[in-house]
């Protein structure tokens, strides 16, 4: 009955859901998870390039968020708060795993290249595929901290300040890491770019 009640409340505001979840209402929290599940799964997937790891990390981020809800201050962005948790978990995971996956290790269907069907001819598509794979591979070889900044900036399109808050580092560090990450990628992709 409780489940039904909250399942019909999809239009409910995030603040209300958070307030209920804070009181222990797990179904309200479930609604919040539904809203952000893709975002954090793909973030983790970009970072780890492993479906299993991304699945685990995304779930763990939400579970941790639920248990830490009391420390969440109302009026702040729930998404940004979970970003912090997720990135923290992911970076720790990568550090533990010393995560470096070669192309051969990459699980099937983890990442796919954009197929711009119809517009580009076959040879152009091949070059683009090659470049994308190369970039992917080079990103994987970046240190976890650099990779996190690059991904948050390039794919999540966060500002320097947001990245700094998420990773709990200074804005200057964000600038520095991003600059160096790009520099490395440009260096390794010199013949492709």
């Amino acid at each position, binding site marked *: 009955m409780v489940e039904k009640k909250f399942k019909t409340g999809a239009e409910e505001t995030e603040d209300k859901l958070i307030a209920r979840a804070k009181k222990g209402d*797990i179904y309200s929290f479930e*609604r919040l998870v539904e809203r952000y599940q893709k975002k954090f799964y793909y973030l983790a997937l970009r970072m780890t390039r492993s479906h299993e790891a991304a699945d685990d990390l995304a*779930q763990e981020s939400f579970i941790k968020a639920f248990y830490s809800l009391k420390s969440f201050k109302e009026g702040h962005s729930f998404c940004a708060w979970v970003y912090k948790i997720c990135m923290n978990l992911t970076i720790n995971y990568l550090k533990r795993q010393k995560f470096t996956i070669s192309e051969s290790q990459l699980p099937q269907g983890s*990442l796919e290249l954009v197929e711009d069907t119809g517009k580009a001819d076959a040879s152009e598509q091949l070059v*683009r595929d090659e470049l994308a794979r190369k*970039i992917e591979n080079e990103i994987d070889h970046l240190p976890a901290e650099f990779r996190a900044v690059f991904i948050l900036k*390039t794919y999540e399109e966060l500002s320097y300040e947001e990245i700094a808050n998420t990773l709990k580092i200074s804005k200057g560090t964000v*600038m520095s890491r991003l600059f160096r990450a790009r520099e490395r990628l*440009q260096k390794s992709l010199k013949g492709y770019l």
Partner: protein
Amino acid sequence: MKCKDFDKLIHLYFDGELDAGESKEIEEHLLTCQNCAAKLQELKKLEESAKGVRLPELSPDYWKTFAERVRNEIILRRRKSIWSRLKSGWEAFFFYSPVKLRIAAGIASILLVFIIGKLYWDYKGKELERVRSERIEKALSIPVQQKPELQTPAVKESLQTKKPAKETTFVKPKPPIAEQKALQISTPSESISSVQAEKNAELQAPSESVISLAGEKAQGEKEKGAGESKTSELKKSITVTAERPKIEKGVTVNLRTVNQAEMAMKPPSLPETILYVQKSPEDKRTAVTTTLRAPAAAKRDEGLYPAESVRYYKVDTEWVRALTDKDTLVEADTLKKVISSWKEYFEKKPVSEWTPEGFSQIKVAYELLFLKTSDEPLRQAGIKLLNQYKDSVTDQKMKDELTKNIFELEALKKK
């Protein structure tokens, strides 16, 4: 500004982190510097290429169950977490917080000291009790002549209190025997006994020379509460506790409850009497000392007790007969008291009121005294005294009784 200085600014410009003025400055520079314009182009190309990597679309079923799986996992962990949180909290407390650890260790130490102290205290108490018990047992195993050790401090104290009143007389009203309770204990293994005397009396006419402690207390109360009602009921209990030594098998010890109120109402004539309860001669080493302060319905197995109907002491002749070697633990002083009290009786009473019981009491007392002290002149004095009474009485029955007693006393030496 040199071209090299624009390196980082190009990144900031590309990321939209510069304000309008700075952006304009960069834009102007880019128009003139081909090198910097190429760097900007590289950045754009890198981003485009990176964004060209798309992520796989997962099946809708996966997304439908994702939130549900999160919920289930939370519920599952909640169930587990009660114990695990306690455990992790405990670990965090002890392994990650030295200050807390020190506090906990301090509290634990204090508790430990308390527990050890309590255990030690209990042990010490039991030890003292045991030593005390042993002392009394030892004292009771001392021969009769060294009797003073037999008395517990409580008994000694009460005896001292009574001494001055030894010459007083006692007029006994009908004792409410029903109120007196004799407690029979037949448990040989018991090592402690207590004699409790309860007092519950109306102090209508308390005698000034009441010997008993209860009497003194009653009087004190009376003086204290002079303005109070004289008929007010005074309820006090005095407990005389004595450590009972180990009693061997087959020994029955009589402990009694004496109504102190009754005592308080009686004239203070009765000196305290030490009774040596001796069921059989074999048991004399384990005899029990107790105190009796008032006439009471004494049991027959008590060798000596104050008489009920007369104000003199009586020796239980049946009990004496039961003794095989005629030895006894009855004190010589007590026996002399028996003799003197009966002598006093016969002096004060006319011959017509004399009772043959007194003759046999005197005879038994002399008999026991002789057995105890082997004092021949004393025995002769007894024979002489009984002969005097024999000369005085006219009743043949009495004469026969006295003849019999004299004969028994004379026969004692021959034995």
